[in-house]
């Protein structure tokens, strides 16, 4: 099977800034792929390279097995949902959605029918006659989605699509996007700085930092087995144990990460332990978040809420399975 998108040591530099620095990437057809990273990490530039708004300074990009270097955006079988939606303010919703078909010369009746179907797909049937100004943020987002999908792209690019929505709408849209992707079988490439979004929706996640992919894999692997301190901290905010602290626990002198939910108050069997002073304890709903001062490190632990705990300022011993210690590749 040909890959939907392939990068071979692709670079894009803006002056001295290496926005994308020799990135290799392979996105399979029908996959929901997320590019996750802080702002300025190069994920958006990668998306723009796929869309054709940027051209690489080095390396090779191919889309569906064909080289895309030098191919303008309007000749690529790729569509984008923009962060600011970029709906055309001078057109009705229906004409917005039908735009891609219009410029390809599809006649009016056919393109309006297709646009109406696309609007129904995103649950906005009957909204075609309205203007963009008459829609809410969530509705505009759906129009942008319909406008891209009506062209039946091979790859759909989503640039921080949920960033401007409120929490409840964001959660609903996450499920909906995922469902839509599974139903249509189109390759989705999502750019986001929100690790929750990337982990919950994507089949595979690439974590970006400083223009490079630092780790890619299934959401579970990224979350449970981060390879570097950066990934461990950025994805799910792991505890990072210094080489000396790790050595005292497992005898292995190297940087190690440890998930906050790995801890229990119950000693169990063959479990390792950390003892420290409770610095802070906050109720988070399902869990209680504890900040435990162990020597000169602060360890965060998420414990099931409702479990009886000693007061702040007193000593507490927490236990965890030895397998929960995840050795990192950073030099000790």
């Amino acid at each position: 099977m040909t890959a939907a998108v392939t990068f071979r040591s692709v670079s894009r530099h803006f002056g001295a800034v290496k926005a994308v620095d020799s990135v290799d990437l392979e996105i399979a057809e029908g996959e929901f792929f997320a590019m996750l990273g802080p702002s300025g990490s190069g994920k958006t530039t990668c998306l723009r390279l796929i869309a054709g708004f940027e051209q690489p300074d080095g390396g090779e990009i191919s889309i569906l097995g064909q080289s895309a270097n030098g191919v303008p955006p309007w000749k690529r079988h790729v569509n984008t949902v923009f962060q600011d939606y970029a709906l055309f303010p001078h057109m009705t919703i229906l004409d917005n959605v039908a735009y891609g078909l219009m410029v390809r010369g599809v006649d009016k009746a056919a393109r309006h029918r297709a646009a109406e179907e696309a609007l129904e797909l995103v649950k906005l049937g009957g909204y075609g006659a309205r203007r963009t100004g008459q829609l809410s943020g969530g509705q505009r987002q759906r129009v942008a989605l319909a406008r891209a999908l009506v062209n039946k792209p091979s790859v759909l690019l989503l640039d921080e699509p949920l960033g401007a929505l409120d929490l409840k709408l964001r959660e609903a849209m996450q499920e909906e996007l995922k469902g839509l992707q599974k139903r249509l079988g189109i390759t989705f490439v999502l750019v986001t700085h929100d690790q929750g979004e990337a982990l919950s929706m994507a089949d595979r996640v690439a974590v970006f930092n400083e223009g490079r992919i630092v780790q890619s894999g299934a959401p579970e692997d990224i979350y449970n087995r981060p390879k570097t301190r950066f990934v461990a901290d950025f994805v799910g905010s792991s505890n990072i144990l210094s080489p000396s602290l790790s050595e005292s626990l497992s005898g292995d002198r190297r940087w190690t990460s440890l998930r906050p939910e790995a801890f229990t108050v119950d000693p169990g069997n063959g479990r390792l332990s950390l003892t420290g002073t409770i610095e802070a304890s906050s109720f988070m709903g399902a869990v209680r978040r504890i900040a435990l001062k162990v020597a000169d490190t602060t360890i965060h632990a998420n414990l099931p809420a409702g479990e009886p705990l000693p007061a702040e300022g007193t000593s507490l011993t927490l236990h965890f399975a030895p397998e929960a210690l995840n050795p990192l590749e950073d030099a000790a």
Partner: protein
Amino acid sequence: MHSDKHNRAPFPLTLAATGGLLFLHLPLLLIFAYAFTTEDKSFQWPPPGFTTRWLAVTWARPDVWQALTLSLQVAAIATAFALILGTLCAAALSRARFFGQEAITLLVILPIALPGIVTGIALRSAFGMMNIPFSFWTIVLGHATFCIVVVYNNAVARFRRMSPSLVEASYDLGANGFQTFRHVILPNIGTALLAGGMLAFALSFDEVIVTTFTAGQQQTLPIWMLEELIRPHERPVTNVVAMAVVLVTLIPILGAYYLTRDGAETAGSGK
């Protein structure tokens, strides 16, 4: 009805505003009045009598028609030049970021800030050095220098308000550069271009100084009027023409005002 009272301006302000308006517009009314006077040698106040015969006299004068035709042609062609070049300048300078951009922006808007006499002398010596004889086209070029600025100023403001992702969205949906211009850029900057074009037309239509330096034997309407004032001959004809010029230039200026008035709700505000 309550708010009416609160919004009313205080009496001294009303008086000052009325005074200002009268100061600006009373002379115009005088010109209108003299267009209908029976006295044709001197401007005598009050006019000894009123007649509409000067309208007919003006209508029958071939030199008026010649000057009017020339002015309309010059204004139309200078505006057309300005629309194309001004829009291209605005598109380039509002999007791209490059070294020397500020300097080029200043150079583009300089012709409207320069006194007309400087532009006029500069063009005259440039045409002289290049051995270009003064003609219809030298007038057009002279007018285009400031018409471009008017179009540029209108277009650049609209370009800056337009979200750059609109153009990218159009490309992304399969439209090439031309289709994008036709279906996305033009509808978004159209009213600004129309307004800029109308202002440019009005400016060119009543321009005197630059024209004096760049015209050969041709007489545009304002130049013709200047000559008429010096050689008194059927004086009220000049007033009739002046009245016509006021009406002809007022329409595009009002049009430009209405077109850009609600310009706030354009592209990018949907964000």
